[in-house]
């Protein structure tokens, strides 16, 4: 229940913050969120996460809001307020998401639908395993080729092998998971 309530609070706050237009309120709420972020015990590397947030916001600012702000000088329009409002809002939503997602057990929060929760648990588990295997494939490929001189045919063969392998693996995983779920009474409990 705790996770569902936290998810609900998160969604309400997300809608509230993304509706904010006042620079003053955005500044105050960002400071509050910043404090909460550093005071609350979170199971994440806070400094690393802050760097990631600032990098992401900075990147999108440099391609969306900053050029728009600069273009304002050419049309003699002050876009300073827009620049600050959007970037503060983006920063705030990023901190909010970081805080709540590290506090919420997403699978428990979404278990109002047993099927949805099970699907997410399975996919997130498989993604970790498959990603490691995929990385092994890529490392093996790049260690055997000179990256700048990858031939078209080599790349095609690599993609064919990878796709074929993961397709077969998916088929096996699907069947194994079905049998595992059945043997553990998932379908019996569900009906």
């Amino acid at each position, binding site marked *: 229940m705790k996770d569902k309530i936290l998810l609900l609070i998160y969604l309400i706050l997300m809608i509230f913050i993304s509706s904010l*237009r006042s620079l003053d309120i955005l500044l105050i709420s960002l400071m509050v969120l910043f404090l909460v972020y550093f005071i609350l015990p979170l199971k994440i590397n806070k400094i690393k996460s802050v760097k990631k947030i600032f990098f992401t916001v900075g990147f999108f600012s440099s391609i969306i809001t900053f050029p728009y702000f600069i273009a304002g000088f050419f049309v003699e329009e002050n876009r300073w307020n827009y620049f600050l409002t959007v970037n503060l809002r983006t920063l705030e939503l990023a901190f909010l998401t970081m805080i709540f997602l590290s506090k919420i057990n997403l699978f428990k929060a979404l278990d109002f639908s047993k099927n949805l929760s099970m699907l997410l648990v399975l996919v997130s588990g498989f993604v970790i395993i498959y990603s490691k295997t995929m990385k092994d494939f890529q490392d093996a490929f790049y260690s055997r080729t000179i990256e700048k001189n990858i031939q078209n045919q080599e790349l095609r063969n690599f993609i064919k092998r990878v796709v074929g392998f993961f397709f077969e693996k998916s088929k096996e995983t699907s069947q194994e998971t079905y049998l595992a779920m059945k043997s553990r009474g998932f379908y019996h409990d569900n009906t």
Partner: protein
Amino acid sequence: MHIPDGFVAPEVYIPSYAIEVFLVSYSFKKFKKTLEDKTIPYLASLSVFSFILMSIMFPIPGGTSIHGLGVASISILFGPWVSFISISIVLFLQAVLLGEGGITTFPINALSVGFVGSMIAYYSYIFFIKILNEKISLFISGFLSTILSVLLIAIVLGIHPILFVDSSGKPIYFPYGFSFVIPAMIIPHIIVGTIEGLLTNLIVLNLKNKINER
């Protein structure tokens, strides 16, 4: 499209969430009728397969590389509804677990890439295969699914400075209108679309026989 939170208005993402939830529930119920108990393992394994297709990197001149989406391949091989639900799951997990793409922009990505992309890929393939050869049809469906998905995102973003402005007429969310955002998004995605077309060709032709063997 990895657009962060803060650029899309709640008036846009809340209805998008509603449509996304409705379509996902509809497609899930549809599978449950035919696949019954095998629905969850089938969708889970195909979602992970979609995730892998999304992570295949394609080197391009200049020392960089870009990844395809795999949407057209999944859609043509397994059907547009399977593709839609798999892509939605992958995008959702990328947003909440990996921090790629925003939570508020998730439904827009899922509807454009997952729904529109899958439908365009599948039905364009059905259409073109009647008049062109298979390789060209696959390429066109991969290319079109990418470009039209991006076009939808560009339209959603471009509508913001028209609908959401302050009292002085200045934008509150995304600042650029259609005349700027459509070419700015479509032109770079021509490369992505071309790669998606090539990947679709390669993947579908490679896997088609294996699926027919089942």
